[in-house]
């Protein structure tokens, strides 16, 4: 039933990639001459060997991968990459418990950006770079998942992400998935290089600019500084990162069309308009609020701080230039709500995503129209195309499952955190920030705090939520259903 050969083959390839990526921090180990060189030497060798062995176990794979194997491979692949990715952290001795190291690894690869490190700046350069590389790799993985894997597995209305509309104007970039993925990767790598150059020119060290470029494009949010981007106190750096966080929150297919000069496609995209409008309106509201409540003297500062932190949360990046939890309880609540939002479908962001919210929102409005006109045929349309009934149900189900998981998980985390000062707030914030892959939440896991105070069981649980959110819930959940394991 389950084809172990295929799984071993795919996992082998994935682990080999992780191993090869480890060469980056490994070279760092020698360039910066860090005190302890063994963790990365050992991890690289182990990961590559395990990867290659697993790959060669079934090197020539002629069988087609089934749908069932698909779900399992994606889930297991992500778990395996997280575990091997955490290996340098475990071996480095900088992390107190295995739970800490695994939490950091999962948070990295899922591009969440939640950290347990209280003093990041104390860490050796190779560890810092590996955190960023993990996020960048996770972002790349997301692109493959969106264009190639999710549409095949058919979950949560993801067909809308890749604009596989049945209408006359099919929006596929290229008829072959492999070619689509290549073009999107090219954009991803190209934009990363651009950010590195811009940040360097704006005054960051080359090491910092590489790290921040990696985590910006992946909408991950790991920083090399304790105060995150706030450390630099530079409007220029903040604006550069604002722009690229916003771009990373767009559908990469749209960016591709934009690069080809087809701006009409971007302007006409319902999802993009919704996304841009949300960002704009929230920023205007927050900046006005901050300015008139005298949190900042100049409106520009209030505007910049609002824009930066809002985009950071909406795109589930998780950088911070200010502690949004101290302004007012109301604003804190808004930030908690925004954790769920996410960027556009087909981006590296997490969360529910703009397209799903747009569909749910439109459908809710239309439902009232349906009540008034019982015999009318009223359908939700996105970009002028009717959203199929199946897709609509899928999306509604996704959103309700998302909320249900949030409720139950928060309950569990409140129980885990019972002895802390604000268990309810912290639990809600931690769960929302994990399942949406944001990173910093509210309460004791806000932007100026870390996850170090959470008990080990909580860390494992939050790591699981990050994976669940990253793989769009259904991919992981389906593995836990009884039908998955019964023969047809």
């Amino acid at each position: 039933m389950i084809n172990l050969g295929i799984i071993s083959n795919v996992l082998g390839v994935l682990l080999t990639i992780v191993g090869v990526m480890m060469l980056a921090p490994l070279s760092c180990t020698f360039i910066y001459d860090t005190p302890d060189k063994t963790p990365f030497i050992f991890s690289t060798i182990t990961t590559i060997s395990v990867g290659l062995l697993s790959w060669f176990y079934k090197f020539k794979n002629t069988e087609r991968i089934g749908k069932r194997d698909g779900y399992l491979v994606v889930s297991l692949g992500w778990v395996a990459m997280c575990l091997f990715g955490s290996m340098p952290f475990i071996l480095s001795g900088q992390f107190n418990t295995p739970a800490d190291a695994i939490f950091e690894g999962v948070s990295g690869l899922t591009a969440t950006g939640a950290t347990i490190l209280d003093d990041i700046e104390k860490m050796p350069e190779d560890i810092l770079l590996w955190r960023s590389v993990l996020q960048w790799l996770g972002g790349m993985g997301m692109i493959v998942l969106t264009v190639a894997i999710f549409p095949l597995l058919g979950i949560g209305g993801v067909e809308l992400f890749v604009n596989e509309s049945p209408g006359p104007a099919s929006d596929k970039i290229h008829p072959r998935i492999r070619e689509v993925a290549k073009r999107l990767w090219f954009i991803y790598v190209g934009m990363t290089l651009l950010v590195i150059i811009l940040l360097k020119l704006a005054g960051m060290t080359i090491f910092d600019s590489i790290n921040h470029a990696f985590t910006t494009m992946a909408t991950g949010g790991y920083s090399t500084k304790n105060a995150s981007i706030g450390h630099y106190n530079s409007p220029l750096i903040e604006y550069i990162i604002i722009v690229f966080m916003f771009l990373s929150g767009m559908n990469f297919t749209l960016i591709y069309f934009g690069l080809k000069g087809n701006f009409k496609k971007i302007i006409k995209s319902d999802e993009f308009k919704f996304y841009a409008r949300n960002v704009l309106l929230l920023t205007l509201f927050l900046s006005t609020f901050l300015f008139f409540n005298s949190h900042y003297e100049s409106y520009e500062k209030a505007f910049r701080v609002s824009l930066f932190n809002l985009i950071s949360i909406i795109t589930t990046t998780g950088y911070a230039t200010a502690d949004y939890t101290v302004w007012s309880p109301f604003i804190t609540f808004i930030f908690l709500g925004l954790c769920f939002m996410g960027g556009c479908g087909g981006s590296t962001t997490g969360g529910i995503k703009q397209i799903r919210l747009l569909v749910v929102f439109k459908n809710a409005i239309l439902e009232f129209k349906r009540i008034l006109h019982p015999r009318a045929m009223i359908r939700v349309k996105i970009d002028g195309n009717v959203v199929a009934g199946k897709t609509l149900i899928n999306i509604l189900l996704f959103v309700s499952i998302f909320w249900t998981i949030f409720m139950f998980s928060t309950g569990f985390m409140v129980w885990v955190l019972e002895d802390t000062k604000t268990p309810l707030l912290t639990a809600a914030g931690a769960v929302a920030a994990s399942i949406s892959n944001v990173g910093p939440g509210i309460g004791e896991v806000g932007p100026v705090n870390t996850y170090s105070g959470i008990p080990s069981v909580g860390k494992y649980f939050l790591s699981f939520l990050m994976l669940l959110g990253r793989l769009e819930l259904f991919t992981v959940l389906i593995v836990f259903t009884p039908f998955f394991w019964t023969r047809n």
Partner: protein
Amino acid sequence: MNIVLAGAGEIGLNLAKSLAHQNHNISIIDNDRDHLDIIASNEDVLTVHGDASSIEVLKNANINKADIFLAITSMEQTNLLSAIIAKRLGAKRTFARVSNPEFLSEGQQVNFTGLGVDKIFSPRILAVKEIGRLLQRVAFSDVFEFEGGKIYSVGFKVDKTSVINNKSLIEIAQRVCDFPLRVLTVLRDDETIIPSGNFILNEGDHIYLSVLSKDLKKVNRLVGKKLKKIKKIMIVGGTALALSTAKKMEQYYKVTLIINSQAKARSAIDDLDSTLVIVGDPSEIELLKGEGIEGMDAFIALTSKSETNIISSLLAEELGVFKTIALVDNTAYIRLSQHIGIDTFINKKDIAADYIYQFVRQGKVQAISSMHGTEAEIIEYEVQENNKMTKAPIKNLDISNQFIIAGVIRAGEANIPDGNFQIITGDKIIIMVHKKQIPFVEGLFS
């Protein structure tokens, strides 16, 4: 002229008949043999049985001698293909009926003329345009534009409240109106009258007049009916025409579309944007009321059945809808319904025929319009050198009982000429002519 027609459907038959009456040599191709036999026994035309896109069949229809080839079957592909082949086989000019609106949209990049199709047209899109014009000028039952809207010819029914009721044409011209206007024809009890100056208008007369576009608003006042600006319209029917109309009109109005079939409604939604699509039977009065027919400014019946359209339009009028338009393809019904109160009709056959006539008529015809229910047509000609018309002022020309000059376009300026007007070479002249006088007019202008 030698004319080959492919497709003996309603539009084709209509055209073949009237063209044969005007002494053109018509060959008509169709693949329904029985149908052709009936035509052959009634009309003086050559019938050819077979597929219009077959080379052999086209040759049998003497395509090499054809001045005009008209492909108007219901199949777009056949029309385009046969027009291309006909051109290669020697037809001088080719016309193809298409149904895909893309082909006619502005800025489309396929050059059909280069392929051998001189002109493509779609009766459906022509009809949508006409409905649009009627909704813009709600006071009138017919609206014809000439020279891109410089001069209009409009038709309406004389109401008892109208200021022109019980007035003679001279009185109207001298006292009622302070702007140039020409009454072209009056339809009274099925009779088409070309009126003289002493003719007195009665309530119930359907009159057609020509007017400059800048004075069009003033004509509204003559109509008498209280005017209303159209905001909400209801369209019934699941025909392609209904869908195209809804798609066009939803850009300007709030549209409710009622479709009988679930499947058609579903495919309609794909194309339409803001239109509210209701599934239900358009003759069900409770449904119409439930969807607020009483609050509608216009009701357009475009189902495939003329009877349903007439009945539902009457119903809408009864419920107080300001403007009703019905698609009626049966000419006999049009006269009948004019008596019972429906004033505005759409007839795809006439619209298509008018469009085609302007290419078939002899002389330099610029445009042509036939007026519903009347025996008259409006034709626009370009006046050639040494034409009889240029010899003297209009009042001295011996044309008075043959036709009426509705307007003259000179160097882009529109005029409603009086008796002293002198026509010169190069003028474009719009005339209203009784069908019987068409051969005379053609002789005059060719």
